[in-house]
């Protein structure tokens, strides 16, 4: 694991810094201010955020994929290009970068831009599944995903999770590779295959949340 030291970010809201962030992530200045407040609240006014800070959020307790979501914030692939590994703490810039994956695409964009946004969001999802950073989602990792999803369903969930994951892998293999001779293998889902199987799901329109433009202060307890 690579530990990156974050220390260059000042705690005072600096207009210049906000502007650079805004350019980088695409959020508006108001949205950045609100998210910064939230960041400060979560990190208890420190400059960096740790996993435990996120674990204190009460609403997340009942989420079956909680640990994977938290992990995603600390996964270097999501905020730095060509770096793998996870970090122990992140600064506001990383927090914002991860959040920017959930921004809605702007209204008037070209097809290529739309495709690019789609790829970025799917890359984020792919990284969440591919926990060992090797570029493919293997059967084990996929099983883990399904088990987590069904983790609140007790024994029934565990037993069928395997079957479901197997079925899903079979489907990916047959869609991506087609007929395979018995001595060929399908190592795991690569990013391209992942794109293909999720062709039907309109990720760029669905993987979005509404970021507040005004400080409505509906803050967590």
């Amino acid at each position, binding site marked *: 694991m690579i530990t990156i030291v974050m220390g260059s970010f000042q705690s005072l809201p600096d207009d210049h810094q906000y502007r650079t962030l805004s350019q980088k992530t695409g959020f508006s200045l108001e949205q950045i201010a609100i998210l910064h407040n939230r960041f400060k609240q979560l990190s208890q006014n420190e400059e960096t955020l740790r996993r435990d800070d996120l674990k204190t959020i009460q609403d997340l307790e*009942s989420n079956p994929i909680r640990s994977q979501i938290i992990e995603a914030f600390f996964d270097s692939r999501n905020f730095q290009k060509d770096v793998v590994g996870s970090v122990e703490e992140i600064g506001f810039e990383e927090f914002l970068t991860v959040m920017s994956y959930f921004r809605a695409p702007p*209204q008037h964009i070209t097809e290529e831009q739309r495709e690019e946004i789609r790829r970025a969001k799917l890359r984020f999802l792919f990284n969440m599944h591919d926990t060992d950073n090797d570029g493919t989602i293997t059967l084990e990792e996929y099983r883990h995903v399904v088990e987590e*999803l069904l983790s609140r369903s007790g024994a029934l969930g565990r037993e069928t999770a395997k079957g*479901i994951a197997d079925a899903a892998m079979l489907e990916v293999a*047959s869609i991506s590779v087609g007929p395979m001779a018995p001595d060929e293998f*399908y190592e795991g889902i690569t990013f391209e295959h992942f794109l293909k*199987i999720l062709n039907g799901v309109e990720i760029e329109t669905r993987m979005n949340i509404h970021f507040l433009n005004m400080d409505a202060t509906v803050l967590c307890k």
Partner: protein
Amino acid sequence: MELKMFILVLGLLVGSLMPLGGAASSPDTGTGHGGSHGNKNPGNGTTYSKKPFPVLSFDYEHVRLPFEISLWVLLASLMKLGFHLIPRVSSIVPESCLLIVVGLLVGGLIKMVGEDPPVLESKIFFFYLLPPIILDAGYFMPIRQFTENLGTILMFAVVGTLWNSFFVGGLLYGVCQLEGHKLAYVDLLSCLLFGSIISAVDPVAVLAVFEEIHINELLHILVFGESLLNDAVTVVLYHLFEEYSSVGSITFMDVFLGIVCFLVVSLGGIVVGAIYGILAAFTSRFTSHTRVIEPLFVFVYSYMAYLSAEVFHLSGIMALIACGAVMRPYVEANISHKSHTTIKYFLKMWSSVSDTLIFIFLGVSTVAGPHQWNWTFVVATVIFCLVARVLGVVGLTFVINKFRIVKLTSKDQFIIAYGGLRGAIAFSLVYLLNPKHFPMRNMFLTAIITVIFFTVFVQGMTIRPLVDLLAVKKKQETKRSINEEIHTQFLDHLLTGIEDICGHYGHHHWKDKLNRFNKKYVKKCLIAGERSKEPQLIAFYHKMEMKQAIELVESGGGAKLPSALPSTVSMQNIQPKKPSQDRALPQLSKAREEEIRKILRTNLQRTRQRLRSYNRHTLIADPYEDGWNEMLLKRKKMKELEKKMNNYLTVPAPPPDSPTITRARLASDPQAWGLKSVTESIPTIKVDLASPQSPESVNVVDEFSKKGSQPKEEEGGLTMKVPSPAKQRKDKTPDEEPQQRLMRCLSDPGPALVFVSPVLLCLTKVHSRQYAM
């Protein structure tokens, strides 16, 4: 040839309809007289002269009403059949247009004979023809898209309809005043009433046209949802203007009451519908012994919801939608598969017949109805309707797009505006007007019919080429795959989590809360038995398996494989990750592989293993991995197997336990099966009971000898299929004895398997540990 026969039959039918249909002004008022005019013996009491016994008599009157109704329904259905025999026409002209034309023809024929053609009575329309269509729409409504776009739909339905009514009504009043002598008697309130009737988008027409153009789901749900929800607005405005038009003026108080009335009508309708929906769900919990009448409950409860809402003048349409949408998830979990099919087909059938009848009657009523043509009024109406719709949609979208994540493009706006069709509801509402209070009723009727014809014919016919021209996104025809389902669920949880991290309670947060509430309390009450705890993913998976199995059986049992089945890839092609390099990977020579294959083939010749599509992987003696059958069936089979084992085993068999106990015991107790009879000569068949994720499980050397990927076979016995060893698993030490991993599936074990199965159940992790070390 077919076509000619069909036209002949049709001609006969219409011919027989003419004298019969015309004899009464409407089927509703036809009364069957008891008197029979064929009876040769009218006298009662005079027994003096004995007439011959009437062998054959003609007595039409007393079956008149049902006979006529059946004839009309038969005509409608034959028409529907006929259109599909003429392929070219049906691809250009939407069905609704053709049906109206047929209605016009029939009406014309009836009129020519001299009779009065029947008119679409409002009572029949609202009580018998409309509910099936709405119930069909409500029951199969895609809830997810509907709730995601609810804000937009409500804006269009409420604000859009209000804007339309006032715009059209106001401008028409202006035109009437300007026109002068002929139209001066039309006062403001009547115009507003007319405006409110005509501005409502009609669900029947929208469904009929949109069904055929296969537009993308978002637009479909927007227009369709709008047409359903604007019923409340229409009801309130209609009653408001109708009540007060005789008085002549409306005060502020009335307007305020009108707003309150609107809230009461819409929310009340929804509440009534929801109550009946919950009752239906609760009833379906107990129907496991009387499966035959399950569909009946769905239909009757929904109809009662509609009627109950009508008692209080609440919005019946909203009640029906709410009832269908609320009861559906619970009822579907409770009822049998056949009942589900029955409900689906009955609803589709009824709504189809209703739909056809409505359009035919519209055509007939056009010929019949009293008309009063006024060029100015009619043309002005048509123009104002179009303009109002376009302005309304554009203006509202401008406001809505500020709040939407996914904005509506101008293409979308165009389709929404163009898809605002008017239909039979408007016609029936005008027909209900009292001619005494509304002397201009006939003119209204004419104008409405013109607008309906215009929207259905012109807009209905041109929308399809326009959709193609503008390259609007169409509906995706692909089946929902399990990957998509997994990721949909994953996305839901992910987005909820991100919202929680952000700290504001958005759309996903509340949806998640509702789901959890539903799971915790509601499902327990309304769903019978085990299925109340079944998560959605598993339910989807079971449904998929069921569908594939049915497809397989229907396609002839394995001879021809359904395309959805990923039979070209089997689990043996999907290998787990290569282990880290610190473990040595022994290689097996080809010769060795051949040897193993031969041995297995000779030993296992007589066992046939039935393959399951999703569990071709190491199905170690774990019969409970498969979620296919009910648990009980599996347990029973397991018990049978164990009983058989008892006859063959040298080692005492365990008492038939529940699977988890068996597994746990075998896994934890190394001494349970001291099978020492493993010798060099017998190829030991080693099976691992542990899950593949535990490190020990992969210590067993598995050379798979494959027999090729076999297609899925139908039920009936066991086939032993040994997968190929092409990829090496991690292993510590190669073993002298080839150890194979067997694939086994559950079902009735064949005789030879009995030899193998005790071995299967005996060997545990411990053996593999021993070998590994």
